[in-house]
């Protein structure tokens, strides 16, 4: 092994705005597409957040009349669809796009043009969805944005009950973003399997790469059924088909199956990349190698497999056979095992480590606690009899927001603080980061801890108002107060992104003293990532570089 130092010139002088815009629109560079995905998602995060705020404002007290029932229906449909398909998915794909090639020592994704195509298909999906506010009326003068709920159960989506074009826009939006997702997933798998730098065997890949590999496999297997179901819905709506038309012998329940075959694994599609961020951040900020690397990989694969056999726990209240109920109770509980293994491994990584509570680590520690709670309420919902009581109540809403916000979004925030220096060359401001963390954590717990209670007291989801005196009033007020804190946290975060990008202090190549390959190149990395393709011998190539007296690969 010899080490060579290569000089790399800074970015060329600024070019006119139109030329730079043209560069971004026509780019096939994985880093730029990653950033485009993330910016796209951040815009929709604000939009989806405003929709959530409107809902919470409406529910702040009984008999409130901020919005009409119709608008309320549109808000929860748009909020759910936006947050899953145009915030969470693009964030996940954006980070995967940016990080995977850098972490495996490659110069780009396997198919750069497919990558650009996939991003623009996703963007088209977002445009379809929001164009419905303008074009949803169709010729019928009814409806504007979709109002069928984010899982769009039949027969609500039938022409009879959903006149106008709002449901069509919803379907087209999911179909087009689904094509984008499948394209990106194919790209991620091909990149990971075929573009690794010399020496990086599967067992030496960073955990982030492993988890994204499994995530991409899941996307291929579960987003395709969603696309198939959307094609069927389009056939029903445009060609007069009868897939979900119960009058003609069709079945509304089969839509539920098709949707949740996608819908539940989707949680793991989003959670695995979140786990991936935690698996990179926690070791670096504990100054220890990850505990139980092979077990972490196996647990990930187990989550992928079991995750595809739990979908009908969303349908306990529909009335399935006892055999089906039992199967889905047991499979749903079984998935707590590999997930629990992961939590213990992260804890064991921190155990005895020299922990630095910088912003990325703060978010990951909160994630550990919150994800545990989310998993525990998940186990309660896996019990079919309890689910008959709690299904479609605010308890369910609280549970899955605990997973998606408390688990996944916290890790994504951690990832922002951790990798922003790499992508921009500037550190995010740490004081603002801590303020963001505390505002958001307090807001999160106010909103989603207390949201469990009205659910237990019988408050159904998706109601636009409620009667006073049912014991729900105070809880709903507290939940809405939490939204203010979360909103303030997001504003601090957005300000921090902009301010630090313009005024932040320079990051240098490796601000966190980390161990994976992306920290060996400059910040931001050059277009070609690595002037010379690196060669690795262990899971922590930069540790080997920094500590030639204590090489990792001697122990692995």
């Amino acid at each position, binding site marked *: 092994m010899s*080490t060579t130092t290569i000089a790399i010139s800074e970015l060329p002088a600024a070019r006119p705005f139109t030329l730079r815009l043209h560069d971004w629109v026509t780019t096939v560079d994985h880093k730029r597409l990653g950033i485009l995905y993330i910016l796209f998602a951040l815009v929709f995060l604000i939009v989806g957040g405003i929709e959530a705020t409107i809902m919470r404002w409406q529910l702040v007290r009984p008999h409130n009349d901020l919005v009409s029932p119709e608008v309320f229906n549109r808000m929860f449909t748009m909020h759910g669809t936006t947050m899953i398909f145009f915030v969470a998915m693009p964030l996940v794909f954006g980070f995967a796009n940016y990080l995977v090639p850098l972490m495996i020592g490659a110069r780009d994704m396997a198919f750069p043009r497919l990558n650009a195509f996939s991003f623009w298909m996703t963007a088209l999906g977002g445009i379809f969805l929001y164009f419905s506010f303008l074009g949803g009326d169709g010729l019928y003068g009814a409806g504007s944005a979709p109002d069928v709920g984010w899982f769009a159960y039949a027969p609500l989506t039938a022409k009879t009950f959903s006149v106008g074009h709002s449901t069509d826009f919803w379907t087209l939006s999911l179909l087009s973003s689904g094509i984008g997702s499948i394209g990106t997933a194919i790209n991620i798998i091909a990149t990971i399997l075929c573009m690794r730098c010399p020496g990086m065997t599967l067992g030496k890949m960073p955990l982030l790469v492993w988890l994204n590999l499994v995530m991409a496999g899941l996307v291929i297997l579960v987003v395709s*059924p969603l696309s198939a179901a959307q094609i*069927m819905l389009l056939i029903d709506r445009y060609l007069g088909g009868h897939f979900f038309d119960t009058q003609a012998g069709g079945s509304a329940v089969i839509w539920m199956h098709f949707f949740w075959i996608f819908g539940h694994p989707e949680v793991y599609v989003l959670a695995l990349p979140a786990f991936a961020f935690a698996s990179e951040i926690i070791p670096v900020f504990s100054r220890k190698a990850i505990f139980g690397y092979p077990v972490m990989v196996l647990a990930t694969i187990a989550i992928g497999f079991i995750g595809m056999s739990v979908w009908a726990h969303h349908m306990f209240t529909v009335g399935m056979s006892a055999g089906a109920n039992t199967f889905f109770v047991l499979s749903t509980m079984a998935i707590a095992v590999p997930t629990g293994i992961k939590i213990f491994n992260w804890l064991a990584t921190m155990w005895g480590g020299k922990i630095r509570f910088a912003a990325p680590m703060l978010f990951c520690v909160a994630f550990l606690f919150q994800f545990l709670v989310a998993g525990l309420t998940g186990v309660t919902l896996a019990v079919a009899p309890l689910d008959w009581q709690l299904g479609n109540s605010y308890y369910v809403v609280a549970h899955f927001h605990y997973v998606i916000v408390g688990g996944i979004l916290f890790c994504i925030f951690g990832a922002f603080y951790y990798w922003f220096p790499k992508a921009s060359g500037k550190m995010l401001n740490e004081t603002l980061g801590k303020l963001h963390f505390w505002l958001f954590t307090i807001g999160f717990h106010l909103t989603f801890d207390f949201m469990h209670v009205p659910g237990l007291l019988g408050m159904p989801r998706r109601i636009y108002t409620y009667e006073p005196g049912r014991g729900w009033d105070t809880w709903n007020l507290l939940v809405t107060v939490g939204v203010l804190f979360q909103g303030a946290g997001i504003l601090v975060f957005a300000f921090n992104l902009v301010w630090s990008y313009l005024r932040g202090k320079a990051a240098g190549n490796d601000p966190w003293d980390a161990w994976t390959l992306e920290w060996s190149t400059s910040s931001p990395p050059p277009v070609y990532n690595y002037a010379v393709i690196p060669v690795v011998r262990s899971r922590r190539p930069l540790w080997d570089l920094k500590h030639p007296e204590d090489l990792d690969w001697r122990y692995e």
Partner: protein
Amino acid sequence: MSTLSVNLPEGNFDWRLPSRGRVGMYCLIAAEAAIFTIFVVAYLFYIGKNVNGPKPKDVLHAPILYTVCLLSSSITAHAAVRRLVAGNMVAFARFWLLTILLGGVFLFGTAREWAHLILQDDLTINTNLFGTTYYSLVGLHAFHVTMGLLALITVALFYFGARLRSEHADRLEILSLYWHFVDAVWVVVFLVVYVIGV
């Protein structure tokens, strides 16, 4: 100026990775297989749930000849790529055009069957549940055959433009993976629609 540290290998390093085209095509096939699975499940689930006619056994006739055409086109596609590897361009072209012809005959068969069903038997996609599932599943497959044919024809155009060389055999092999997949799906569709479904 910033600096970058990298490790350089000592001597030769044996490092082989799978072809990205092949991996990408296998992933695409997995995604397509998942889509077909959903349509096949819907078809099987809805067998016999019609509330009005016509029923499958009244109107469906198994297209055995066209099935033979499509399945043998897989063999000719494979043979064509073998010839290309060997550098025998004329033999390649013969087999490749035969593949296109066989695929085209299959599509013609589907078109004839549909014309008969629509004009003679009054079965369209909105007639009943059978019509919906039948035209969707068979149509989804026919769409994939069409896409495959367009790809095969593109290659043929490159051949006639004298741009095709035996170095491209690997890419054609990846393309023929897709064609084999489309043929394999037909076996499933055939079983479901013309054997189990009637």
